[in-house]
């Protein structure tokens, strides 16, 4: 199908455009309006997200689903895959904004910039989910990275936050530099930046002996470093615990869900469309490489989480581990795996954000993220404790919570390819993971607090909490989500 020219493309680009517009609007209005106390900027940006969501549906309705189109001369692609991830990211951002409103650690003076940046980063992620050209890939990646560096360091006068930002940017810059180098090599081999053609090109050069498989491997590994850093997969994960711990909790939640999801979107699209041809698969043992990475990631994440006493950091490690689980679906890039990842991301969105929301609440009440501050929560705030328990069990992957069904799909995908060992490692990991999740549960239910005064939360808090609890309980039982995730494909 012929790529659409730039001007025509704009019509299909409205969701992104809206985001940009609202971002600008937020900044400008923030400058004009002197009211710093109320949260109108936040609500304005929420509206922006809403508009963009509507726009997504409209533009999607314009597209014939089984005939996806590519915009801007093949720079970006508009297909169900992209649409799904955009919606997911929007939800994540919306949640983050709501957290930020409630979070008490955030600096009131810079609301405008903060929310504008959130919108901007969402824009970048949209691009990540849909770009089909090396250039776009690099630009979108950098957009997201740069904004997230700033957001991570957003807490002025907080050494932790600045340190997080510093590490993040140093690490990120090197990683993306490495990736760029890899991209350049790919570009050199293929002679084009269009990833829809890369595979065939490289295949032919490989066949003609123009380049050695080693060259391809090096290039791919370099790129893997870049993407691996985004999805925090071992051995490129090491930035994430520190950054997650240092960054403001809403941003941590955002990074652990949204930017991971975006990274997976990029990862899947890039390797699925770019490198999924027999020749390349022969040149490197693709499946094994990813399988090892995945196994390593989940194991490292879980084991390192065991001794943590800071719940935020613990969740950081746990999200590394979940990255590993997700990678299981990416192994061999089967469509089963793809739909498994999609389903798991939906579940993960709710349970992980929910968990972080509880962390926000507790941090507000007790001013601490340490596990000690969760003691006796069952008596101090039974509902919150119950919700947290549900999130944690779901993260562990215990029926009847959605997390189990997600895991089950992933294992299903892996075992269907006969990788029993990987499934086995994954399952052992989920047993290990129970251990540290249960430590929080234990603190909440089996231990008693020093001060037993009950926490008081507003109705809206519980409302928001239930937004995460209800799906975490029910998604697994509803066939619609399975069929939906089965529909998402990449040709």
């Amino acid at each position: 199908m012929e790529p659409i020219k730039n001007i025509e493309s704009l019509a299909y680009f409205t969701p992104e455009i809206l985001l940009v517009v609202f971002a600008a609007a937020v900044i400008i209005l923030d400058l004009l309006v002197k009211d710093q106390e109320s949260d109108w900027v936040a609500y304005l940006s929420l509206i922006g997200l809403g508009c963009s969501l509507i726009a997504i549906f409209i533009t999607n309705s314009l597209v014939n689903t089984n005939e996806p189109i590519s915009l801007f001369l093949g720079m970006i692609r508009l297909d169900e895959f992209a649409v799904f991830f955009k919606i997911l990211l929007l939800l994540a951002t919306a949640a983050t904004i709501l957290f930020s409103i409630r979070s008490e650690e955030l600096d009131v003076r810079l609301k405008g910039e903060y929310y504008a940046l959130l919108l901007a980063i969402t824009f970048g992620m949209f691009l990540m989910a849909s770009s089909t050209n090396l250039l776009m890939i690099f630009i979108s990646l950098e957009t997201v990275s740069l904004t997230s560096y700033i957001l991570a360091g957003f807490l002025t006068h907080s050494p932790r936050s600045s340190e997080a930002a510093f590490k993040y940017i140093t690490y990120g810059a090197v990683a993306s530099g490495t990736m760029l180098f890899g991209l350049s090599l790919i570009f050199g081999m293929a002679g084009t930046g269009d990833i829809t053609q890369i595979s065939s090109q490289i295949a032919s050069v490989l066949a003609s002996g123009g380049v050695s498989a080693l060259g391809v491997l090096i290039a791919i590994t370099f790129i893997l470093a870049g993407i691996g850093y985004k999805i925090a997969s071992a051995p490129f994960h090491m930035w994430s615990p520190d950054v997650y711990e240092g960054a403001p909790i809403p941003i941590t939640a955002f990074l652990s869900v949204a930017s991971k999801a975006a990274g997976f979107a990029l990862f899947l699209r890039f390797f699925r469309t770019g490198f999924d041809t027999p020749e390349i698969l022969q040149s490197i043992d693709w499946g094994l490489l990813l399988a090892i990475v995945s196994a390593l990631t989940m194991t490292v994440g879980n084991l390192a989480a065991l001794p943590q006493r800071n719940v935020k950091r613990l969740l950081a490690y746990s999200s590394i581990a979940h990255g590993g689980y997700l990678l299981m679906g990416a192994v061999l890039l089967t469509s089963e795996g793809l739909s498994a990842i999609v389903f798991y991301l939906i579940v993960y969105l709710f349970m992980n954000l929910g968990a972080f929301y509880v962390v926000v609440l507790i941090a507000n009440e007790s001013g601490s993220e340490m596990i000690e501050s969760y003691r006796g929560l069952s008596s101090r705030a039974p509902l919150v404790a119950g919700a947290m328990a549900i999130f944690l069990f779901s993260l562990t992957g215990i029926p009847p919570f959605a997390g189990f069904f997600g895991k089950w799909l992933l294992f299903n995908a892996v075992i269907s390819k006969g990788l029993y060992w990987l499934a086995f490692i994954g399952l052992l990991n989920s047993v290990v993971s129970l251990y540290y999740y249960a430590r929080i549960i234990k603190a909440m239910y089996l231990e008693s607090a020093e001060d037993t005064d009950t926490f008081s939360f507003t109705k809206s808090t519980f409302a928001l909490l239930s937004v995460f609890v209800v799906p975490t309980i029910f998604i697994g039982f509803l066939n619609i989500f399975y069929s939906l995730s089965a529909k998402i494909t990449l040709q």
Partner: protein
Amino acid sequence: MDQILLSLMIFIPLLGMIVVLLLPREQEELIKRATLAFTLIPLILAVYLFINYNTSTANTQYFVSVPWIDTFHINYHVGIDGLSVTLLLLTALLGPICVLASWRNIEKGLKAYMALFLLLETGMLGFFAALDLFLFFVFFELTLLPMYFLIGVWGGPRREYAAIKFFLYTLFGSVLMLVAIIAVYLNSGAPDARTFDIPTLITLASTPGHALADPGFQMWVFLGFFIGFAVKVPIFPFHTWLPDAHVEAPTAISVILAGVLLKMGTYGFVRINMAMFPEGLDIFTNGDGILGHSLALLGFINIVYGSFCALAQTDFKKLVAYSSIGHMGFVILGLAARNPEGINGAVLQMFNHGVISAMLFLLVGVLYDRAHHREINGFGGLGSRMPIYTGITTLAFMASLGLPGLSGFWGEALSLLGAFQEFEILTILSTIGIVVGAAYFLWTLQRVFLGALNPKYEELPEINRREIVTLVPLGILTIVLGMFPSIAINMFYVSVSNLVGIIN
């Protein structure tokens, strides 16, 4: 109408949980009564099913099968055969009894306790009724969470340790089972013809040439399931969670644990391992050498090890806990025999042990509520102080040590009779368990009830009416089934012969 009865029975406790959660936490009496009501309804339904169950056929009855997760061909498929209806009755019976047993001795968080208990009951009932492998697993795991909290929150001093230990062991077992389940699913046919439906899978697994029928495959899957269930049973060496869990758990929960949860392991073994993987079963029960005798060997180890450990205990509850390890050994031994006597004996033993061990734990609870300790040597001469309690305890002990004329005997006897056909030496060695069983029970009887009355307990109150009410139905069952075991056996022997047919 009949179709939904089963589902009603399964989910009414769940409904009860919601209701209880909505009740104000101050209304303790109300909460208790509500819970009791919501556990009595399933009992009534279970009795109805038990009576109306058609014993002449091995086909599943009262079955419902509606699509659930179409994408993966998962159905909500429940139904009962002779095996499950018996165990359903047991579960439903123990429900209200446990509620009564927790009437007075739950100090904190009664509401949560009752809610969790109801959830637990749904899980157990569902497990015994499920005929879809996925559903089966979900219910299997569903019992985990409430159990964890019930032990961990309302348990004894070392409750945290016991709870997490129980949780980790069981989870470990069940993840292996999960792999096996997925493997079975994926090998059950072409991508669009895959199924989780247990009856279908059973037929597939016995059709020659089918992927599921391949012995090598069956062996591995068998092992996967086996470990999953072995942890639950518990089979040596996966048993160490049990004494801790039992000792720490509150009385009612110990009752459920011993009465039902252990049976889930053996039931699953019969339902899946034996029926679905006869080839795999062959390898472990029908071959020569250690491998061919492995299952019987495990049964033997359970019996002897369990009973000797029990003999060495001084904690009343721990003694009972170890004794149930021993008694579950007879179940394993009987199943390993693969002949009608053995399997019928095993199933009967499952039911009877459910009843008897429930009695034992209730009795321990009664004593503990009064004396606030369980040190066997710390009592003495209670016989003259609490004659009725002593009488009931003697009954329970005698039943448990397999005294003929009480239900405990038949399960053991049939299992042994069956096992002797296959494994003579092992069976003869296993009879050691009978003697030792008598030894520790009589010895306990002597140390607790006989001899001169320990002056500390001159004022110990006699067992009260509520406690008697919890014990009497079980006692009656023990005696009636002891005289007429066929009442129970007639329910399932057809299903069992059907199973035997599949195996051989």
